[in-house]
């Protein structure tokens, strides 16, 4: 029986301040979740779909504008084929692409961190930086809960 590794994808541009939240979280994960595969990418692109298809559970990590800086949320991501394709994919579109291409769509979640500083340059704002350790814990919780729900052994 093959056990699929969990996959965590932190995405965003680390040179646009808080947009680098996903990358900052991804950088902390290998020590906390040594069994998970971790990707840090500037944006979601179709080439990621096959890694997604091979995953047990997928967690996307991103900064989200329009919310209190540092506020954490997590939600389920459902595949969508209805979206058009711009320069990058949304988590929903990537899961939809995965389903269409590989006929497999593992459970997926988005952990987002509220942010409002997307200026030019590296480094996170104080609020977002403070939220990074909590986000790591949230991801561990999301993976654990999903594992318990689904059994995840295929």
């Amino acid at each position, binding site marked *: 029986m093959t056990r699929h590794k969990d996959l965590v994808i932190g995405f965003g541009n680390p040179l646009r301040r808080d947009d680098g939240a996903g990358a900052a979280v991804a950088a902390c994960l290998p020590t906390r979740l040594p069994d998970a595969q971790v990707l840090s990418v*500037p944006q979601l692109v*179709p*080439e990621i*779909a*096959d890694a997604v298809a091979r995953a047990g559970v997928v967690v996307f990590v991103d900064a989200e504008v329009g919310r209190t800086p540092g506020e954490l949320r997590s939600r389920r991501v459902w595949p969508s*084929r*209805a*979206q*058009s*394709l*711009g*320069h990058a994919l949304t988590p929903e*579109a990537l899961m*939809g*692409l995965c389903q*269409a*291409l*590989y*006929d497999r769509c593992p459970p997926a979640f988005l952990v987002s961190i509220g942010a409002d500083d997307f200026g030019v340059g590296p480094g996170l704002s104080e609020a977002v930086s403070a939220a990074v350790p909590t986000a790591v814990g949230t991801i561990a919780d999301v993976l654990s809960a999903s594992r318990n729900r689904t059994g995840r052994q295929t």
Partner: protein
Amino acid sequence: MTTMSRTIVIEPVTRVEGHARITIHLDASGAVDEARFHVTEFRGFETFCEGRHFQEMPALTSRICGICPVSHMIASADAGDRILAVRVPETAMRLRRIVNLAQIVQSHALSYFYLSSPDLVLGYDSDPAQRHLLGVAAAHPELARHGIRLRQFGQQVIEWIAGKRIHPSWAVAGGVMTALTSETRDRILAALPAVRDLALETLRGFKRTLDQRAAEARTFGSFPSLFLGMVTGDGTIEHYGGRLRIVDSEGRRVADQLEGAACKALLAESVHPWSYLKSPYYAPLGPVDGMYRVGPLARLNVAERCGTPLADAELTEFRQLGRGAVLSSFHYHYARLIEILYGLERMEELLADEQALAGDVLSRASRNQAHGVGVSEAPRGTLFHDYTVDADGVLTHVDLIIATGQNNLAMNRAITQIARQYVSNQTLTEGLLNRVEAGIRAFDPCLSCSTHAAGTMPLYLQLVDAHGTVLQTLARTSG
């Protein structure tokens, strides 16, 4: 006395890449007189790189483009080699070639599978809401999987050798920063046969599509022009480190074995007030007869052979499409697929030689020349980086001639021809919009040298009568 502060606000800051507009101009009778492709954005690298040291340029200019950063990096390093006036180690030249070919593979896969296959396999008149890669994935998952795998492979090779998939800064004046390890070489060689099979299968599928679209393929942006591309000393196709050749529409050589500086000296640029994209042409023949095309179609037209068995077999078949040069811009797609196959075969040859693993990859020197012109064949065509430096190596002049610009006259010619064929009764349909777009898409333009909105290129299409009145406007956003 009080002083008032003043703030200049630019609002909105529109997208910085991929913005284009097409206008179609009608004559007094309502027939299409001309179509124009307007590029409405401005990057400004030539100006703001002045004052930097030339050795910074490979890393700086790799930031011009997210799709073809390798070509900029290599053309820039090539210009730097000439300013250093050093002989670059053979292994470094070999590795630059391999990485440039990996980029050709990934970029061509993006163009064909992500951007153009929706038109080719779903149809120009198919539902625009589904006419993108996700739609292709739903209708033809195997084709989409091939495209994703080929693009992934090219990017992976770039990352393995040059350290990063996007914006690497590995090639430098004098060579490259790191040698190839045998482990990386073996990983690439192990993966190559499977992706080569995908390329062959895609070519077979494309040729079936071509059979169904034969009439369109013959006429879609088909016109005589010159073609410019790189070849080796014996006329084999080359993408880096070769000399430049220009042929006419009959396939006759107009100029041959030109170094970058000598070739660039034969080019002049015209400027149109309606576009930021300049229009280079072959100066001895002027802006009309000197119109030339670059890119995969041009490279196959200038070369006598590919020099690899599978690509040469495909080239022989491809040649039957033209008497002399193949003229239809539709066949950029075909040429792109042959180049993917060639790139994979040639990568294997270059890697199989033990010279690929030699440790001597960088020649060191300081500024020895005031001027250097570097050239690489980018996915979209010949790319020139022309630098002039002062005594300290600080850039005093930068001139970049990018492939998309060199195709500008031809792109305008292509959409004029397509519009004349399809526009009637002063009306536009979505299908027409898409055909005109497809005429541009065949060239795979890189408007800020990084413009790629899969499936739905942002486009603004106007129908204008003889008095300049806008009769109809269709706008498409990038989704």
